[in-house]
């Protein structure tokens, strides 16, 4: 009587794709994080001047993003050793003066939308650490003779 040969593996064993399982888990966590962060705070990407002033003294010192239009005729720049830029952000109902030492991009101009990050000080001046220019959906061919925006903001030109 012969002893039966040990059974051969009939099909190659299935690989256990743990690497892929881990990757899928990572993707799910990332999606969860994105979903949470967009529901949590993106619904108010910025507050308007009216909304910020409504909060009264509670708003002082709190880091927020303030969005609105750069008021016509309000931009002033001090071009000394310590660069400082000041302008007024308005939503046509309320206005807040903004002071910053951060230079915005070339698309910054009076009348354009802007989002500034920083906080209100006790004098009611918004100290911005960052100025983001909000471009709108309008495109425009430069009028003949005008120079389209370059990569530096030069007021008074």
């Amino acid at each position, binding site marked *: 009587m012969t002893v039966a*040969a040990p059974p*051969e593996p*009939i*099909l*190659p064993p*299935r690989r256990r*794709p743990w690497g*892929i*399982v881990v*990757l*899928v888990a990572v*993707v*799910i966590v*990332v*999606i969860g994080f*994105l*979903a949470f*962060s*967009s529901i949590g*705070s*993106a*619904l*108010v*990407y*910025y507050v308007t001047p009216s909304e910020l002033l409504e909060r009264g003294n509670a708003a002082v010192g709190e880091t927020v*993003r303030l*969005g609105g239009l750069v008021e016509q005729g309000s931009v002033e720049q001090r071009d000394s050793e310590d660069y400082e830029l000041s302008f007024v952000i308005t939503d046509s109902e309320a206005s807040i003066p903004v002071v910053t030492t951060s230079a*915005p*991009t*070339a*698309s910054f*101009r009076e009348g*354009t939308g802007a*989002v500034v990050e920083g906080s209100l000080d006790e004098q009611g001046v918004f100290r911005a650490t*960052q*100025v*983001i*220019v*909000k*471009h*709108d*959906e*309008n*495109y*425009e*061919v*430069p*009028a003949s003779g*005008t120079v*389209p*925006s*370059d*990569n530096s903001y030069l007021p008074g030109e």
Partner: protein
Amino acid sequence: MKTRILGLVALAAVIAATAVALFVVPPDQNQGDAQRIMYPHVASAWLAYLSFGVTALAGIGWLWKRDLRLDAVAHSAAEIGVMFTAFAIWGGMMWGRPVWGVFWQWEDPRLTTTALLLALYVGYLLLRRLSDDPERRATRAAIVGVIAAVDIPIVHFSVEWWRGLHQTATIGSPDRVLNPAAPMVFVGSLLGMLGAFTLAWLYLMIRRYQLARAEAAREEARRMDRIMTARTVEAAR
């Protein structure tokens, strides 16, 4: 042969549309030359919508007709869509730095929902590799593909629904279609780029589908091979 001609025509169209965007169209008054990035950016975003829409429809088709060719279409579209989503995000970042002043803002709804779109379809592609049973894989992928497609309208209308940094649509929103907020020279160049990119998409889809079918045939041949080997071993006992 016909596919090759399509590929050459698409390549010529993309080169022509790129040349127009780079050398013919004037710079924008406010954005300057950064505006030229908008053409491939918007065209890529359109192809992302198109691709993931096709993935969802082909997924529904698989669940309904049980035809694996539809699953191959869904797979091809998802892979190409991931590529164009990544390209749209990258181009957008290259535009955002000179115009906004920042590459990225997590709290902007358009940016965040687009990042989510990319993550969803990378997840879809990973999920497809979890199973080596073609039918089970197709069913799982179809379900995820349909659920993930919910994000497409959210991405598109995020700029209308929520306050954010990203501008609203210049031509793609319902009240703008016949009344775009841009001069015709910009709109015409954009339409040209959209057409060129869509031709290129069609070519890529056909080639990726052919590849998917070849992969499926090889997978099936290997499976048959394993079964035959197993039977031979069994018979030899």
